[in-house]
């Protein structure tokens, strides 16, 4: 009798252990599934697009003939767009973070602003596009120029920049600012000369990462109305423009008509991903090299 229950327990134990092993394997597969997908995506994009990348493609104008089309306009457009987004988000984002962390009294107003910021981070990007279309393009009558697109993108990534900057400022230990106050520095002097320099690597990392988000974002610009037709290279923030993701969008839509457009879209994706990769690598280098642990 005793032997029997012992046997049952042993058999039971075996199934439990087997189940554990099987599920461990399934869990591992799930963790690597995403990476597998990413690998397939990259291989597919590279094999499809690498053949179209050459000097002419990178420096040429848009063209209706696939073999003559180039993406210089989109590259310049992305560049000009960032020239609006980067300063605006840094100025407003860091300013907001300083106010929330250093000046505002913890209370209802701060928690209201804080909740508001995290809600804004959850608003779909296309809704920002509608805001930009209504306010910048139509009400302020800017039209679909770099400035309007840049301000829209700025609003979109501001919540990310604010939160990253807040975390960077919060990570600065209390005794640094106490020491600064101790030698007679005012609050603003302390912020200017102690807090901001110490928080800069963290702030920059967050800013670069959110810029890469803005570079890859398409939906708000589609809504604002970026033309698919040939436009001259943008030379200032008041010019009309197109960007890399918009070019990918239009070429993908036309890929079912002209199959070469799929290659052009893939080639543009390669350029976009390389740009993002460089930005992200910069962010990681900035973080690892300049971030001090206090």
């Amino acid at each position: 009798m005793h032997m029997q229950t012992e046997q049952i327990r042993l058999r039971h134990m075996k199934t439990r252990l087997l189940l554990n092993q099987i599920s461990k394997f399934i869990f591992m597969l799930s963790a690597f599934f995403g990476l597998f997908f990413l690998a397939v995506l990259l291989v597919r994009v590279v094999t499809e697009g690498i053949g179209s990348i050459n000097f002419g493609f990178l420096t040429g104008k848009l063209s209706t003939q696939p073999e003559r089309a180039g993406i210089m306009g989109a590259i310049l457009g992305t560049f000009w767009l960032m020239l609006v987004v980067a300063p605006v988000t840094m100025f407003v984002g860091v300013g907001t973070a300083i106010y929330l962390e250093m000046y505002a009294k913890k209370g209802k107003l701060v928690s209201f602003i804080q909740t508001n910021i995290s809600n804004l981070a959850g608003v779909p990007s296309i809704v920002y596009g509608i805001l930009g279309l209504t306010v910048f393009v139509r009400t302020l009558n800017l039209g679909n120029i770099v400035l309007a697109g840049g301000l829209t993108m700025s609003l979109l990534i501001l919540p990310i920049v604010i939160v990253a900057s807040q975390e960077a400022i919060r990570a600065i230990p209390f005794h640094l600012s106490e020491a600064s106050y101790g030698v007679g520095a005012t609050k603003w002097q302390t912020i200017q000369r102690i807090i901001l320099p110490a928080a800069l690597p963290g702030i920059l990392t967050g800013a670069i990462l959110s810029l890469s988000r803005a570079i890859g974002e398409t939906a708000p610009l589609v809504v604002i109305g970026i033309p698919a037709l040939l436009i001259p290279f943008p030379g200032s923030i008041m010019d009309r423009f197109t960007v890399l993701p918009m070019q990918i969008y239009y070429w993908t839509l036309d890929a079912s008509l002209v199959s070469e457009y799929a290659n052009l879209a893939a080639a543009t994706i390669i350029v976009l991903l390389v740009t993002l990769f460089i930005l992200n690598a910069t962010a990681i280098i900035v973080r690892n090299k300049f971030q001090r642990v206090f």
Partner: protein
Amino acid sequence: MNSEFTKTKEVSIRSLIDENQRGNSLRRKTERLIPIGLMLLASLSILTTLGIIWTLLSETVEFFKRVPFLDFFTGTILKPLSQNPEFGVLPLLMGTVTSSLIAMVVAAPIGLMAAIYLSEYASLKVRKVVKPLLELLAGVPTIVYGFFAFTFVTPILRELIPSLQATNILSPGIVMGVMIIPMIASLSEDAMSSVPNAMREGAYGLGSTKLEVTRRVVIPAALSGIISSFVLGISRAIGETMIVTIASGSTKNFTFDITQSMQTMTAYIVEVTGGDAATGSTVYYSLYAVAMTLFVFTLIMNLLARSVSKKFREEY
């Protein structure tokens, strides 16, 4: 010599003090002005919210002056550009809900299981490599996923399911799911990692296997975080635009058939703004009504996620 030295020193100290006071009045002004300036910058985020709500609301009100509220929310036909236009939002809701559901069918189990692996099974070394790589997946622009869904996933799926249309809701749904995996994995992993080890040790002490500890101890303890990651995933899927716009087409189908092309709310917005809807036309206003619906949907989801993670959090 000595007296001269004292004299010069006296003068310099006096001038220093004078200068300091002069500087102080300026400095005091800056000290007072800077917080005000910074507060104005901070209020910009509130202004953004007000801007969104005002923009959507004012034009939505205009829309409902032309199209009855009930017709909009119960109408199953959406023909904005026909001679007798009909503005039923249900086809779009159907598209959005279907694509989000397909995405969650992919993302919820795989994301959760990946989180379990990273939090409970993987060694520190593996975790340190896999987690950032998964985050790379989240950093890929959605337009790239759209291209991939349209030119790669759809053709493969059509081999398996011959009745699948060239534009359909299934393929973007699946790809959207993959896009959301890192988000769910990362948030759920955070929730599971913060379950204290003492609880695991207790269950191991009773003779549990790792799977049993995960199922009976870790997941129940981290449930609030896991559910809130699912809700955030749904919210992300609802707001996703480019993948569905490219790969699901613009047919305003009111159907349960996932092999068909269906238009989501986001894709409708892209279609209407991309075409030349004249300002002031009903089509133009319908854009805002749909955007308002989308905004309210995602807002509810985000608030829900926050309240779930707050309310049911077990404090240790």
